């Protein structure tokens, strides 16, 4: 039986993925193309008292180049994964769950296809997208601690959103 927050998490992953790629000038939409071959992947982990897991993005170099605005360094997709997880971290914090992020890992290959982990207690959100430059898959795995879950959204005073800047 899915966790009570599975739909919320799926929606957050979807909304933040779309916003991130939009922000980097490579808008994505629900996948329609048949060719889902991806050749570059970034994986990043997180853990906290309420939940832990990982986030994985797979795509093709044309997408990373578009988002970077030119020839992308090898670790760029890792930075995108880091920024996507950072957005999710902020959303989780607004729902009472704090997580800590690891450093990302980038892999290259010929046909990289991630799939849901079906171990008991682990849930996966998997979203397939298309951009003009090629396919993007975002997989978010999570495992809640027993009895844990997200709280109703709270306003967090002084929380900062993406691209905001402040001098002290």
């Amino acid at each position: 039986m899915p966790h009570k927050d599975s739909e919320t998490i799926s929606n957050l992953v979807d909304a933040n993925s779309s916003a991130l790629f939009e922000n980097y000038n490579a808008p994505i939409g629900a996948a329609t193309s048949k060719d889902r071959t991806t050749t570059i992947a970034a994986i990043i982990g997180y853990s906290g008292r309420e939940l832990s897991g990982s986030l994985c993005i797979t795509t093709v170099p044309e997408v990373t180049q578009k988002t970077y605005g030119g020839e992308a360094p090898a670790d760029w997709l890792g930075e995108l994964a880091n920024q996507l997880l950072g957005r999710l971290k902020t959303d989780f914090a607004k729902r009472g769950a704090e997580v800590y992020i690891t450093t990302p890992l980038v892999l290259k290959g010929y046909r990289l296809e991630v799939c849901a982990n079906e171990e008991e207690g682990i849930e996966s959100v998997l979203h397939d997208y298309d951009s003009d430059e090629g396919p993007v898959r975002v997989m978010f795995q999570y495992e809640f601690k027993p009895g844990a879950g997200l709280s109703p959204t709270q306003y967090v005073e002084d929380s900062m959103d993406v691209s905001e800047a402040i001098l002290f």
Partner: protein
Amino acid sequence: MAKTILVVDDSASVRQQVRLALSQAGFDVLEAGDGQAGLDQITANDGIAAVVCDVNMPRMNGIEMVEKVAGSPRKGVPIVMLTTEGQPAMIQRAKAAGAKGWIVKPFKPDLLVAALNKLVA
């Protein structure tokens, strides 16, 4: 004479993006790949006018680096955090440690340059 800014981030991509933005604004740019390497450069080079620093990095994270700089003879060097993090508790910790600003990625180059111009003026 151009002011020198040290960029501390474990992502080569981000260092490259920040370098581009700051170079176009007339700054000289140095790079370090983690907090320890950043601290080493700040300590060794008194020509560094300001620092742009990530939070989540291996070896030594950005807030630890700010705390170490605050306890060193180079404590006057302004440090701006550039990170995906936006939680108030972390921002307050950085502020208490001596950081002078906080910018959430993805950054707007004009905001970053404006912040640094204000800090190194």
